[in-house]
């Protein structure tokens, strides 16, 4: 149902709280839905919540669900450092936490920290981008949100690849807040300063789509755009040739694994796996775009 995020039909094993950033972003929505489905199939009821990047709200939500007596929490956190105390709070009150997507800088508090291999995924995208550009030309980087560690990691990985090519010049770099309209307007402005760019490399999906909207309006269909995330919108853009490459983050998989490990921990007292695990990002181009749906690869 759309109205109620809670589902108590099948909760013999208790309830799991699923806490993500914002449900109006397709990535987080996919994560939350996959986790919910998996948890229900394992016999838990679920409570899906969002903190909208507000660390204080995240803290309050965690204390609330702990008081409510949930069995465990699957958390895509609101800011790595600022989430440590909330996770520790849950642990101290006997509620295990599985972190997905974003890590925290301390070990041993969360039972698992599952994140995407941003470095690998970003490097692959960057390589593909370089190849297409023929190792030379002018490009623009639009970062998603430099206050977010994942975003910083992606940008660094981009540069580790791109900076090796002396003929490849970055002519502008701006932060677009991870948002569609911001990206479009910033791209509009940059295009004025640099009408002759050959490529744009973007820190996340919405930013790439915003850049595409701007380029389309300016009639610059030949500029190569690369992004990261792999939302359905991006996939559509790849199919129609507007977006050249992206990396699909396995949101569904990471969420499902997170729930299974939480379940295993609840049953056996251990996940049986190392705390930090990385999930490969899958490079998507026109060739394999068909295989992607809702941040899941392979089945259609």
């Amino acid at each position, binding site marked *: 149902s*759309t109205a109620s995020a809670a589902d108590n039909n099948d909760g013999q094993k208790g309830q799991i709280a699923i806490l993500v950033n*914002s*449900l*109006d972003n*397709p990535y987080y*929505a996919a994560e939350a839905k996959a986790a919910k489905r998996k948890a229900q199939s394992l016999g838990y009821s679920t409570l899906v919540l969002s903190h909208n990047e507000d660390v204080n709200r995240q803290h309050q939500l965690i204390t609330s669900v702990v008081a409510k007596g949930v069995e465990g929490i699957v958390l895509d956190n609101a800011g790595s450092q600022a989430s440590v105390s909330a996770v520790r709070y849950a642990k101290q009150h006997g509620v295990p936490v599985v972190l997905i997507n974003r890590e925290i800088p301390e070990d041993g508090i969360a039972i698992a920290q599952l994140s995407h291999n941003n470095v690998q995924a970003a490097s692959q995208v960057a390589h593909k981008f370089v190849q297409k550009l023929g190792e030379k030309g002018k490009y623009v980087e639009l970062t998603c949100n430099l206050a977010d560690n994942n975003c910083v990691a992606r940008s660094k990985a981009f540069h580790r690849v791109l900076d090796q090519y002396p003929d490849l010049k970055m002519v*502008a770099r*701006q*932060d677009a*807040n991870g948002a*569609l*309209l911001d990206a*479009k*307007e*910033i791209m*509009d*402005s*940059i*295009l*004025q*300063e640099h*009408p002759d760019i050959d490529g744009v490399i973007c820190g996340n999906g919405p930013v790439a*789509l*915003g850049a595409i*909207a701007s380029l*389309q*309006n*300016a009639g610059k269909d030949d500029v190569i755009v690369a992004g990261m995330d792999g939302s*359905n*919108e991006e996939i*559509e853009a790849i199919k129609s040739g507007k977006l050249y490459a992206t990396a699909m983050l396995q949101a569904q998989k990471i969420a499902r694994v997170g729930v299974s490990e939480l379940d295993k921990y609840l049953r056996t007292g251990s996940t049986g796996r190392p705390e930090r695990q990385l999930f490969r990002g899958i490079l998507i181009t026109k060739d394999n775009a068909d295989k992607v749906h809702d941040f899941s690869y392979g089945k259609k």
Partner: protein
Amino acid sequence: MSLSTKLMPQNSRAATTSRVFLLILRLRIFLALFAVLVYFAVTTDRFLTINNLLIMAQHITIFGILSIGMTLVILMAGIDLSVGSIVGFAGMAAGYLIMEGIPIGDHVLFLSVPSVIVVTCLIGLVIGLVNGLLITYLNVAPFIATLGMLYVIRGAALLSNDGSTFSSLAGYEELTNTGFFFLGTGTVLGIGTPVWILAGLTGLAIVLAQKTPLGRYIYAIGGNESAAVFSGLPVRRVKLFVYAFSGFCAAIVGLIVTSQLHTAHPMTGDTYELRAIAAVVLGGTALAGGRGTIIGSVIGACVISILNDGMVMSGISNFWQMVIMGMVIIFAVVVDQAQQRLEKRVLVSI
């Protein structure tokens, strides 16, 4: 000795100086625009190209159109905090109408693009009307009524597609409801459609504000509401109209943004109300009502937009942009206060 001779200016140096100074203050928003343009033209390459000016004009439309509706509201000593949410909701409504259609029994009705636009504008108008009804008939203070609506309408926008976007709003060839993108990205005579819409709305609003009884009433209500009531003006109906018009402007912005991004996102327009208010204040409209112009606000929106774009082009960080923005807002009002004081002084000294 008749009064008219008494009103003859004294030809002292001091009086002339304050007159010149007053003129400068009155024209300050134009000077500010000019200053911003010159500054970025000098410091930033390719700022002053036709192309960039056209692009900037496109960006101005968003806050320009919002500021037109907001100006009328503020002229009337009101405030409308709900416009940002209406922008988001209107976009979602348009997306829904184009991609999902209206289910009627077993059938689904798809409207043509012009009808979608009209219906979306009507939706904005009705939401504005609800604001107006809360304010006039239930006596809720405008700040609270529109704050409440800010939440309600944003929630509704999010609920409309369970938080997801409506994307690739190309319409369906077979249903002949394509062509929605023209609204945001098309050009007429080389100038973008949104710019034409802004120009049209600006002209319309100027005529409305300056030439019609309705406009006069808006100024009168903002200048002295109790005197307006005593003068037998239809105060409630004027208020209803103005809030509805503000909702209408917000809906148009929602349509334009959606059309430009090819996607309706439910969070679009978040906090735009604050920037629209800032543009209005920058343009010299008093928050207390009764004093201000449409053109001032539109130019205020230009200054804010160009400042923004210019800062982006010259690579000033986001964080500094916020600080500068805040200072500009406060400074604008401080200067306005100085102008008011000087106006009085000049009036007394003649």
